[in-house]
């Protein structure tokens, strides 16, 4: 469904992604693993075209989306949940959801505010509160909910477990499984291997912008040396 072919990305002159190539199959949850600074967020942004890759190709549902404006990528059905959350702090929870709203998309779940409040009960009671009044976990939920309002076919989840309480991390894992059950495709970036193991079908490991491993979870389990070399467990 989503395919990266030899994607290269730069910040100024710094080469951040080096010939990254992997695939995310329809209905799958793929975990992009790597340490801090490995290039996970850059990969996400390059897919969204928020950073224009220099060289390489990103295709989505067979369409070459390289060089598109980010809003066009989003309209094509890719939803982006940034790591820093970036909720609109001056807007209420409901207004935050409104920003994410897009028309219904064929073959995808059409999300409503009420469905999202079922998925994230904490947000329901906070619907009138401004974003800045939310806790870190609630903000994380709101970011995901806001992206789901766009009825995406594929969600890019950038480090959803970062900086939130363990009990909410567990809740996040359940949400991701539920989304997968609903037919969503997910590309998830993580440092937390346990979290990835709980939800992912396969993993891609990157280090310094270079791909080190791609395969199923079982294959990773059979190669503990890869895990030890590139992930901090």
């Amino acid at each position, binding site marked *: 469904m989503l395919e990266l072919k030899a994607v290269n990305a730069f910040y100024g002159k710094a080469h951040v992604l080096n010939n990254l190539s992997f695939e995310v199959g329809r209905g799958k949850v793929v975990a992009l693993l790597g340490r801090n600074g490995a290039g996970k967020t850059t990969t996400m942004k390059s897919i969204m075209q928020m950073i224009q890759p220099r060289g390489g190709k990103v295709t989505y549902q067979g369409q070459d989306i390289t060089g598109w404006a980010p809003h066009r990528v989003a309209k094509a059905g890719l939803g982006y949940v*940034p790591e820093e959350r970036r909720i609109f702090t001056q807007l209420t929870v409901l207004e935050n959801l409104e920003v994410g709203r897009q028309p219904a998309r064929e073959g995808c779940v059409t999300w409503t505010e009420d469905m999202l409040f079922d998925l994230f009960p904490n947000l329901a009671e906070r619907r009138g509160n401004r974003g800045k009044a939310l806790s870190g976990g609630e903000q994380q939920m709101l970011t995901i909910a806001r992206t789901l309002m766009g009825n995406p076919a594929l969600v890019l989840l950038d480090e959803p477990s970062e900086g939130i309480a363990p009990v909410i991390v567990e809740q996040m894992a359940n949400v991701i499984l539920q989304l997968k059950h609903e037919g969503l495709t997910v590309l998830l970036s993580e440092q937390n291997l346990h979290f990835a193991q709980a939800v992912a079908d396969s993993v891609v490991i990157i280090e310094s912008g270079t791909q080190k491993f791609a395969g199923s979870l079982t294959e990773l389990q059979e190669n503990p040396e890869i895990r030890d070399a590139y992930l901090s467990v």
Partner: protein
Amino acid sequence: MGLFLAQLLTGLANAGALFMVASGLSLIFGVTRIVNFAHGSFYMLGAYVGWTLMQVLPGMVGFWGAILLAGIIVGLIGVIVEICVLRPVYSAPELFQLVATFGVILVIQDLTLMIWGAEDLLGPRAPGLKGIVRIMDEPVPQYDLALIAITPFVAFALWYLITKTRVGILVRAATQDREMVGALGVNQSWLFTGVFFLGCALAGLGGAVQLPKGGADLLMDFNILTSVFVVVVIGGMGSLPGAYLAAVIISVLNVFGVSYMPKSTLVLMFLVMVVVLMFRPFGLFGKEEVAGEHGQVGEPERPIKPAGLPVRLLVAVGLVLLGLIPILGSNFTEVLATDILIFCLFAASLHFMLGMGGLVSFGHAAFFGGGAYVAALFVTYAHTPMELALILAPLGAGLAAVIIGWVCLRSTGVYFAMLTLAFAQLLWSLVFQWGDITGGDDGLVNIWPSAWASSNTVFFYLTLVICAGGILLLRHAAHSPFGYALRAARDSARQAEAMGINTKRIQWVAFAFAGAMAGVAGGLFVFSKGSVFPNELEIARSFDALIVVFLGGVKTLSGGWVGGASFEAVKDYLTRFEYWRLALGLLIIGVVILAPEGIVGSLRKLGERLGVLNTGEDKR
């Protein structure tokens, strides 16, 4: 009591137009982060377009229809400007766009002059509202009462649009994080264009609605700009209730000021602003700016390096060539070169503060004009000789910068910029209205150099030595530990603080230093011209320096003086033509679009591409 009430009502009526223009400016800034200097021009266009429509459309319906139509037409003109001028430069470094809007001011000024002529136009009176009402025996125009009644509706409609509709939600979201709004599937270009339409339409509406009270003239654009900036800053950037309250405060204050303190009306407005910002640095209803929350925007700054031998040689050759001007050139070139040199030092001083310090000042003319006036006042009243006056000029300007910097540096970003503008205007109004001492509009005249320097040639050499020395000193400061600390404060204030750098103090010193250097230029200026007038302190003067710094290239060390030299030379040539503003405006817009890194930056890129220059990266 009756008079008091009547004046209050006049103030409230005047607040209407001011509120509309200010809310438009604040809206545009919130979403696009562009300080639209041309906003006053759209206000002026609204008045002219409305006037023409009122000649054509009959009766009461025609009158109000003309006002509405003027708003829509000006909004559409704004859309054209946004699409043709601003869209190509959104990705340029922050604040670069404001240079483009300055180009727009010049173009609109001349186009208005071409279409409607230089004569002031008397606004028609509103059909059905021509009379007066007596309130406690005081006459109050019916139209004033109509305005007082209408403005809250406009304010309410705007408030509803912003708080209750999807468009409003998107606008507010984009004000905080427009990239994220884009990633959620909203086409930012159309959002920007829409906001520009709305903002400009409001300005046009403001211009048309005040026609029966003020008519239309070619000075409207700059005249309203200051008040609008003040209103936006007092109210708080992006706050509609704030803009309304501030517009009322300023308008009422003006009405009362005219009757009770006719000599200090202009000063009053800025004093209020300074007092408000002392206690609420982000305005009455403003929220703290969270600039740079998501790290640095755009490519990282390129480190500056001390000049190598070839550059030093080049500079030496350039100075020798300059020194040959009196021998090779005519008297005219000497005078022109003197002007250019002075302007270069002025521009370089702003460039130091802006480029190295990241302190965007909209009011640098305060120190140029300030230095000029200090010298002129000493010469006029104490018969100070030129040599001493040239030393007192930077001292006076520097002292002013110490005080102004202390207040302004309490805020940051656009508030800082607006505050510096307000102080420059404060100085200007002091000079302008305190005619007994400063000569007011007539300026101070007969200030000539000492006998030994009175020939054009000697004065040129004197200017060359002082200005070249000043520019080299600024350059030296950029490479000193102080310069490093200043750039650290610019790039990451927090980390710099954590390293033990007192960023505020460093910036304060830089502000004062830049002010003093501008004072040097101002002092030289007085003696080169023999006179000084309040327009050396005007907004236009500050803007000249800003344009030059941006056109030269903010991120390059030599941007200031290169920009200064090219701008002043081009201006000297263009002002010989009737519609020079149009030409200059188009030229500025052209440079902004074609060379977004400024003249020096773009030349260097070109040089690197052709392989003439190395890329400045250290080879390891």
